[in-house]
């Protein structure tokens, strides 16, 4: 493998990390509160807002049911509006973030719903306001689950990021297709796959470890 190819693999890895990190950051920024809201706004729940809950639920489901490549292409005007261009690695962050947000929201919703209802009752009995219950009870108690969900989201985003090559979005997937597949360079393909495996392994292990550290529900040693 020529030094040039190695440099290409390195820069593609950085591109992938850049896209995934940015999309995860944006997705979490919007998805976390959205998930918390979805988990607490059905009728009779803490923030009871059934109409908003239904509407947001439909939007989230619609986004999640659109295949990622279709989503990427169909929101190009929006991408151009936000990123100033629809081509390139930075522009690719937009569809990735759009796909990540509802995904993260649903994962966060699931984790929040896992929290024992008795804790909400106890907090209400203490005179806590709904926002205090969210901030002091629900989110901290759901944190180990949320961390696992985010890990899953990051791993999925690495997969999605391979597709954004269609809009010129660089990264490892793009490298694999252009060099490994179209130029018949099996060693590049193998290297790309290897880096992806290591990346996913590393992120999963990190996420597992962090979640375990945060989870005080089980005794450690």
């Amino acid at each position, binding site marked *: 493998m020529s030094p040039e190819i190695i440099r290409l693999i390195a820069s593609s890895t950085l591109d992938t990390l850049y896209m995934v990190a940015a999309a995860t950051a944006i997705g979490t920024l919007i998805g976390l509160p959205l998930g918390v809201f979805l988990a607490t706004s059905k009728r009779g729940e803490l923030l009871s807002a059934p109409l908003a809950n239904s509407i947001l639920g439909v939007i989230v489901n619609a986004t999640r049911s659109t295949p990622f490549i279709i989503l990427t292409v169909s929101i190009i005007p929006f991408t151009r509006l936000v990123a100033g261009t629809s081509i390139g690695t930075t522009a690719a962050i937009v569809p990735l973030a759009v796909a990540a947000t509802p995904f993260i929201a649903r994962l966060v919703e699931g984790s929040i719903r896992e929290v*024992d209802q*008795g*804790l909400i*009752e*106890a*907090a*209400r*009995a*203490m*005179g*806590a*306001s709904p926002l*205090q219950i969210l901030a*002091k*009870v629900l989110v*901290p*108690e759901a*944190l180990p689950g949320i961390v696992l969900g985010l890990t899953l989201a990051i791993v999925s985003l690495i997969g999605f990021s391979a597709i954004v090559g269609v809009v010129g979005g660089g990264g490892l997937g793009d490298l694999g297709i252009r060099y490994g597949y179209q130029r018949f360079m099996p060693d590049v393909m193998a290297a790309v796959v290897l880096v992806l495996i290591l990346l996913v392994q590393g992120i999963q292990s990190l996420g597992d470890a962090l979640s375990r550290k*945060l989870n*005080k*529900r*089980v*005794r450690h040693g």
Partner: protein
Amino acid sequence: MNALSFHPPDAAQPPQAADEAVVRFEGVAKTFAARGRQTAVAALEDIDLTVRRGAILGVIGRSGAGKSTLIRLVNGLEKPTAGRVLVDGTDVARLPEKDLRQLRRSIGMIFQHFNLLSSRTVYDNIALPLEIAGASREDIRQRVDPLIELVGLADKRSRYPAELSGGQKQRVGIARALATRPKVLLSDEATSALDPETTRSILDLLATINAELKLTILLITHEMAVIRGIARDVAVIDNGRIVEKGDVFDLFTRPRHPTTRTFLAAESGRALPAYVAERLTERAGPGSQAVLRIIFRGSHATDPVLSQITRTFAIDVNILGGTVDAIAGRPFGTLIVAVPDEADLLKRVTAFLTARGLDVEALGFIALEADRASAPAAQNEGGHSHVA
């Protein structure tokens, strides 16, 4: 537990008469509206109940009797559909949300499953209500540290709930409930998930808190042992209604409602020994003897009435079972005896006992030895060694 003295009497409260109501239910009803396929459920009807300042009132009922709803009305977790629930004279249901939150800080609550935050240490769990109330870090520390001492968990300060036993978790729950210096403590089946010995220690802690901090306690339970162990006043709830209420000793010794009797049936001494229960019949048979339950209350618990009966009526009395115990600090005995079923003897014995302040209950008849059924009852000398 010498750490109790840190709790000064609440300066904000003017001195009040001892029998003043802290919590009062006035004609309260609660119906859960029909939703979807479920029909409307009347959880509570016609509840009138008063919790006096400094008292420990126990409400006992089966699951589904409405007792959970009842206790949740006090801190506004449920709203009544009729009537009023007053806490220190304030109608809970009519408070705006913000004032209700304020009121809740003066009402502590402990739960069957403890409801501790798994992500917080013992210290931080106890600190939670104070954080919610907006107390400063320093104020929180000054409040939480003595509370940890009070409930005997000084060595568990930085432990997480998962590292504690059930009894320890409930101690954290109690400390947390006391953090905001409440005027009432609500106990929602607080010992139901605990073994008898741990239950005892938690009840002792609650009794100490009641005595030393003058904290009013309203507790609900399905266990008579809890009522007997800690309460002075009791209300029996069945099917959403309070069917009997009063002094614990009176209720234990003179239960009137069938539900109360059912709860008492399993209590030691009241239950008939199995060998008696199996052979008990409603009608007298040949050679059978009448079975009486004699209840000794208070100062009569130690009267030698059996030997008095034996002498006065010149009959033999078989003892089938019995206990002497103390309820709410007063002695209380139960004796189950068999006496000959002759003419008006039963009436005379009953009158004799009643005149001496004892309660007598005719339970039925028993043929003590089937193979001697034809023998005159009077010959059933004291030799039957069925004494429990």
